[in-house]
């Protein structure tokens, strides 16, 4: 009886769970496609992780994933014994780490700057111009990067030559891969990534701005004491989500930009999985490497969430 009462109380307004379901049925209907999406494309494929512990026989089809010979931790031992393990982990981590360090603050700063523009038309124009690169296909962006940075005829090297500097073979020198990747990535995404911050800033009550102005605050003080604290939960939320992909470098871009000359800094877990899995048919081994990557991702986001909760009382769960 007590239990039932508690359940009813939890439902709110004295309505039973069934009544609440009925009341919100249209919202729940709308939720169905999302649930199906996650089940089919996220949770169901997870069962395929069993491949990491099997010797998958190519051509054995979908059921072969579950019926192949069990080999325990063979593929993990193989990967942990690989001379490429440290390099892959380092490259994957550093590419994302640098992208985060340099790429994360830029949309915030841009959002603050753009919301300070007085003219609404100018503000919109600037926003549209900065969103555009996001919609260029990765293949095209990589083609542009290769052309611009070519040591023979690339515009960047032509400018360097005019400044009396020798051409730099950007795309074939390992030390240039990370800067090229991070800078081009930031250029392509900062406008689009700023949308959520712009929205958060726009959500700040005008009364608060007014109150600060009445108190004599200048623009810098408003940004520091009002804007930044107001969007702090958004920043932390997005930061934690970004940390969740710390070990998930965008495969396509690395694959399109790298070559054997820059493997030392460019070869990441995802490209290695691609070469082992798709190109060499070692699906079980590739799955084991991918699973290892996901476990690290999970550990990072879990840790980040705990730290965030302790430090700022803001957390995803």
């Amino acid at each position, binding site marked *: 009886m007590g239990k039932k009462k508690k359940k009813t109380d939890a439902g709110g307004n004295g309505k039973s769970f069934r009544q609440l379901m009925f009341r919100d049925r249209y919202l729940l209907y709308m939720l169905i496609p999302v649930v199906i999406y996650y089940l089919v494309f996220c949770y169901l494929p997870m069962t395929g992780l069993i491949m990491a512990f099997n010797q998958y026989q190519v051509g054995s089809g979908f059921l072969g994933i579950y019926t192949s010979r069990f080999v325990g931790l063979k593929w993990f031992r193989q990967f942990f014994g690989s001379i490429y393990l440290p390099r892959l982990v380092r490259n994957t981590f550093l590419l994302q780490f640098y992208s985060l360090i340099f790429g994360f603050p830029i949309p915030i700063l841009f959002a603050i700057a753009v919301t300070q523009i007085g003219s609404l038309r100018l503000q919109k124009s600037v926003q549209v111009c900065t969103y555009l690169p996001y919609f260029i296909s990765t293949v095209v962006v990589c083609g542009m990067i290769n052309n611009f940075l070519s040591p*023979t005829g690339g515009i960047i090297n032509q400018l360097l030559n005019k400044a009396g500097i020798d*051409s730099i073979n950007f795309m074939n020198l390992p030390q240039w891969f990370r800067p090229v990747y991070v800078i081009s990535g930031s250029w392509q995404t900062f406008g689009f990534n700023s949308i959520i911050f712009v929205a958060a800033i726009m959500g700040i009550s005008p009364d608060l701005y007014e109150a600060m102005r009445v108190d004599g605050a200048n623009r810098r003080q408003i940004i520091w004491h009002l804007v930044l604290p107001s969007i702090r939960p958004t920043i932390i939320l997005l930061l934690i989500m970004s940390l969740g992909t710390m070990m998930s470098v965008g495969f396509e871009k690395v694959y399109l930009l790298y070559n*054997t*000359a820059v*493997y030392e800094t460019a070869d990441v877990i995802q490209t290695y999985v691609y070469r082992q899995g*798709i190109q060499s048919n*070692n699906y079980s081994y590739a799955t084991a490497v991918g699973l290892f990557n996901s476990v690290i991702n999970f550990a990072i986001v879990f840790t980040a969430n705990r730290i965030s909760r302790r430090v700022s009382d803001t957390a995803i769960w």
Partner: protein
Amino acid sequence: MKKKLLTLMLAAAMTAGMLAGCGGGVATMPSTETVDAAIESAQAKADDSGFTYTGEAPITKSGGTLKILAQTSNYSNVDITKAPIVLKVFEEAGVDPDWQLLDFNSYEEAITPMLSAGNVDADIIKLPDNDPNQIWLKSGMFVPLDEYFDYMPNFTKWLSENPVQKAELTAEDGHIYYVAGVNLAYDYQPCLMYNQVWLDKAGMKAPETLDELVKLLTYFKENDMNGDGKTDDEIPMSVAAEFLPYMFGPAFGLDLVSGYQADQDGNMIFAAADPENYRAYLDFLRDLYAQGLLEMEYTSIDRDKIIERMSNDLTGVAFDYSWAMSMMYSNVLPYYDGTEKTAFVGVKPLSGTHEGFYVGRNSLSGMFGVNSDSSQIELAVKFLDYAMSEHCQDYYCWGFEGETYTVNADGSRSYTEQALDNDWLQQFGINPAFVLPAQQSVEATDILVADWHAKINAELRQYVVDPWPMIYATTDESDTVNLYNEDIQTNVNENATAFIMGTKDLNTEFDGYINGLDALNLGELVQIHQNQYDRYLKALKGE
């Protein structure tokens, strides 16, 4: 000593090639007993409708549709499904095609996951490769064709006449799973080409040694070869990274194309782990790079870029498949007039510490198998048999009399005026190896290319040696090769680039590279190739 050793090794390889070429009853590794017995007992058999296929069209009286998974033409303006030759084959056979064609350039990458998943909805499938590690045939996805030899009179005849290819196609379990296309193995192979106009302008002959090449490249780099008044826009050599091993490996006694090679005692070595010759090879390329004779961007240069340079008369040396000589490179030169004097011309291979050679191709290529999930296996088998018949091969090489060729008074053939337009001929479906098991012909190719090109090909044939033979790996061997090969290739490729570009010091880091290969279990792969080669030699001796 090394030179002597390699000469002996090459002599052995060429002898083996000659033996194979003569079709001297050589049987390779797995026993062909099962196949031989199937050929022996094959008898034309009536299908369900009572029709008996005897090797000639039609293959059925009841019609039908065959689903075919293959690749598009390598010519982007050619729709191979509408090519008259391809349509004719299906029309004669009495079946309709239901095509599923994947892009030529990414075929391997696109079809591999499909095959791996094992749920391909097609009756006939073109494989992404020759299946050297028996990955696909072990998957059970393909029908053992020898169980259907009653329906394959043309294929069984061809196998009987070509015992080497029969043995090469026979898998570890004694069955044959694929009908193969046949490449030109010694003709029109990748070769070195020079811009003849530039050569003449430099007053030099085509280099035959590495030293002569360096001298020529330096001259090209320092002089205004294209006459535009500038001496800094010439790019002496335009060669894609993938062709450097073809071009320079032999001069150091290395077959880096095949990867593995045997010395005169039959001992296997991995060419990119040869402590002396491979080091010398890298040292030479490093010097070329340092002098600016091998361009900074050599790792990312592709054919499109090379063609663009040639059309602007910016480069003097190339290395590519022979067909590119007159069909892709020469004809974009601004001054090409159809003669050898104004073209990019192929020459003999470069020699260095060793006598140069070109690496040929395995004759078998373009494997077609019948899906074991197909509901019409017999029809698919019959179609493959008909599609590889001599009758159809004649179509593939020559097309139709009166349209693409005419028969001369002496019985020889000539392409018609229209067929000499390569674009038109490709659209007609000549050599449709993308969708059917076509066998290439030297005679037809000679007529297709410029006269001077055919003459050069005839001269270069003597320098072509056999590649690593096609030997199916055993199950254990293929498991090990699949496991280690990718890491080893990655290591070789990136270290080669690092040594050539100077980001790694050849003097101090080469030994570490060799040790690194050992750590990647290269020893096991060398032993596997040794075993395979021993089996091959044993079979050559008829043991």
